[in-house]
């Protein structure tokens, strides 16, 4: 049986094919993305006698990139886990699976499931992977800071190791202490640190990068605002304004 017939039989004839390039067929099966577009599956015979490759031509990650980038090690790790656990493979951003002709239909369903799971990674950004905040912030810092020496997880007062700041940037005579704030407890910790440093008369500038300032209780916003010289309301704001703020401090 031809591999196209095998797919047709699996879908009970509710499938169509279009030869996109010589020997490369696009499968028109009733499996859809959220927006109603069909999931892209291209099928072709590989060099092996009876082996068929199903692949996405990189379109899954292209779609994902509309509003979600695999731009951190953690996101890449999650992506690779989805690939591995769903029995498909990935090379140069193309997802694929090889199958014998008689197994091509179940392989296609397996492939479609993997593609759908990768596509749903965009929701991790809003919900599940909120814990990526610190990793994403770290990445923005690394990109933004070109010629300014900095350290992570530093205690500016050696005899007070509990007063740790997330970043210390060496800017002129006044270092910048940056606290990354996710949640109420961290907000309180940031405020306590800065107020203690003030009492100890340390020279510093206090920056706070919030995961989302609007999520904090009103009292926390008040105490952080009193203690900080500059705040970034969320990661987008930090990404845009932190490099400018750093430049301004360097110019002072």
């Amino acid at each position, binding site marked *: 049986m031809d591999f196209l017939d095998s797919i047709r039989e699996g879908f009970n004839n509710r499938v169509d094919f279009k030869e996109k390039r010589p020997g490369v067929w696009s499968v028109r099966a009733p499996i859809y993305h*959220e*927006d109603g*577009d*069909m999931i892209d599956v291209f099928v072709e015979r590989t060099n092996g006698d009876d082996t068929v490759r199903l692949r996405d031509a*990189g*379109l899954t990650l292209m779609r994902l*990139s*509309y509003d979600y980038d695999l731009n951190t090690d953690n996101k890449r790790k999650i992506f690779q886990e989805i690939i591995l656990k769903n029995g498909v493979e990935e090379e140069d951003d*193309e997802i694929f699976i090889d199958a014998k002709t008689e197994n091509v239909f179940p392989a296609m369903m397996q492939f479609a499931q993997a593609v759908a799971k990768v596509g749903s990674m965009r929701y991790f950004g809003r919900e599940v992977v909120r814990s990526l905040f610190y990793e994403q912030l770290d990445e923005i810092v690394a990109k933004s800071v070109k010629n300014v020496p900095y350290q992570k997880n530093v205690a500016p007062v050696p005899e007070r190791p509990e007063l740790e700041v997330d970043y210390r940037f060496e800017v002129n005579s006044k270092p910048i202490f940056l606290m990354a704030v996710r949640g109420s407890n961290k907000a309180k910790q940031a405020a306590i640190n800065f107020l203690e440093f003030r009492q100890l008369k340390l020279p510093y500038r206090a920056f706070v990068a919030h995961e989302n300032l609007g999520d904090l209780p009103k009292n926390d916003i008040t105490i952080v605002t009193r203690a900080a010289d500059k705040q970034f309301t969320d990661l987008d704001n930090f990404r845009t304004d932190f490099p400018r703020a750093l430049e301004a401090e360097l110019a002072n």
Partner: protein
Amino acid sequence: MVAHYTQEEIEAMIACPKVIVQPLAKKWDGKPKHRQNEMELRSADGKYEYKVFLRQNVEFEENFSIGVRGREKGKPWMTLLRVNGPHGPNKEIRHHEKPHVHYHDFDNFTGDPALAIPVEDYFSLNEAIVYFFKKINLPISSDYFGGLFART
């Protein structure tokens, strides 16, 4: 899913005059299987901010998408519009392979623009770019788009 915008707001966000905050890169960013470019906009009245994305598959160039995400400052981002190439069928235009535009269908809100309308106004990527910027009310200026039509 909670709807943060009314249909009227979505339409106003698409149609209002805009200014460029961050222009497109002069060169497309080449990924292993697609190329991409991006820009940032805001509404002329400063109420809304936008991220525009352009994507084109390397192997199947007819598979492209030009889209815009927008938000009122302080509210969540949402994809407002996507202008797609004739890449393949859609649930709503099953038997055709036409360029199509995805809009938000507020009655069937999923968080992604789900309503697909086939269009005759463009076929190639360059034509689609012109169509898209007209749709979002941003005049094409050579100052900002000079490098856009050049292939990398």
